[in-house]
């Protein structure tokens, strides 16, 4: 479904990504972890073309992201993305946040879009909130709306860029629960996160990145029990001891 091959990216002299490669099969859940500044977010943003890269290839559902002829908006409409800071549109109601792109990008009728939005809001447990504005919701609620907004496009895969990093601790679980359900429903997911509990529960594979490199890329069991590299061991000991 998602194929990342030897992707390198430079910001001027600084190399942010060094020949990163991995595959995410249909229905697979892959977690990317690593210290901050290791290139995780940059890599995931390359997948839907929000960041460009100078070398390598990324294919999503058989379409090349780097190909100049690719209709990037169309490709993006088929890949959902959830951001660290939610990025709901503050001037639109919860309902309008979820219907906007359905109507403007997919050409759905208002009625269809509202139906879909209501159904998804029910799924994330926020059906009552639809007339409100984002600022009236808690961070956890906003992030659940953001997930619903992405799902409304019927994506073939979902990208999560540190979806719980900006949340207060007591709100992290309500978002993770939605993500776990989504994973168990068979959604293809690429998730940048520090939530190792989530990784242990639903991930098929874990990728560990450091200094712009994919250092480890292995099934979760072997990653958590027998990390191969010192760097991964150090990282795990730091975040798992608490």
């Amino acid at each position, binding site marked *: 479904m998602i194929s990342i091959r030897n992707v390198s990216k430079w910001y001027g002299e600084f190399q942010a990504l060094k020949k990163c490669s991995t595959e995410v099969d249909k229905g697979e859940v892959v977690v990317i972890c690593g210290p901050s500044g290791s290139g995780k977010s940059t890599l995931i943003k390359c997948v839907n073309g929000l960041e460009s890269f100078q070398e390598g290839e990324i294919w999503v559902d058989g379409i090349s992201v780097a190909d100049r002829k690719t209709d990037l908006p169309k490709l993006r409409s088929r890949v959902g993305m959830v951001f660290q800071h939610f990025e709901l549109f503050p001037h639109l109601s919860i309902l309008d946040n979820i219907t906007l792109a359905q109507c403007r*990008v997919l050409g759905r009728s208002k009625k269809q879009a509202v139906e879909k939005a209501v159904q998804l809001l029910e799924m994330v447990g926020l059906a009552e909130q639809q007339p409100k504005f984002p600022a009236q919701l808690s961070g956890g609620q906003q992030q659940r709306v953001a997930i619903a907004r992405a799902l409304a496009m019927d994506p073939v895969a979902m990208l999560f860029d540190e979806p719980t990093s900006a949340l207060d601790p007591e709100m992290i679980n309500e978002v993770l629960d939605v993500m776990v359900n989504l994973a168990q429903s068979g959604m293809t997911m690429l998730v940048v996160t520090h939530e190792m509990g989530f990784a242990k529960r639903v991930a098929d594979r874990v990728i560990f990145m450091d200094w712009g490199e994919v250092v480890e890329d292995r099934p979760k069991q072997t990653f958590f029990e027998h990390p191969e590299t010192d760097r991964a061991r150090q990282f795990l000991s730091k975040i798992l001891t608490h």
Partner: protein
Amino acid sequence: MAFDWSSIPGSLPILWQGMIVSLQITLVGVLVGILLGILLALLRLSPNRLLSWLSAAYVTVFRSIPLVMVLFWFHLILIPLVVGLLFPGKRLELRLIAALTAFSLFEASYYAEIIRAGILSVTKGQFNAGLALGMNRRQVMRLVVLPQALRRMVPLLLTQAIILFQDSTLVYVINLDDFFRKAYNVGNTVGTLNELILFAGAVYLVICTLASGCVRQLQRKLTVLPVK
């Protein structure tokens, strides 16, 4: 020095005619200025170097020339030339057209900078969120970024409108009868020039103070509104 205010009540209808011209200039200047300002701001921010440069040049030129001279040039040269080409042989009242055009184009350069700052104040994350949903750049700008930018800019845009209302008195240099010039003329004719100019000043003071108060109220409301 004794003041004689007796001529003012009788001349209110004439002064009102002038006020209509002043308001006309303000309204057209604000509306056209904002629309053209949005266009200039978008061109300035566009990835196309040439368009961006042209927009920057426009803004720089208009911001570097005194408004009085812009008014003169439009009145004496540009508008007669254009109207002469479009409607040959007709004699039109060109002063108002010259003033409206000059103010619109001049204000656009100021609005362009205000709006550009507003657009830049909307975060990259919002832009990315729009793109990630499959919208193209134009849709993201129109549906996500501009509505937020303009909302944030409302107080500044209105403050600029108040300044424009005051600046509209400059049309006296092209003999256009706005409120101030009507007052001046009445005072000159009746022989109570000091009184009329004081009165006109008081009217501007009251209108602008009230308008500023409204903007402050609005600003308070807007910051309470659900804007991040």
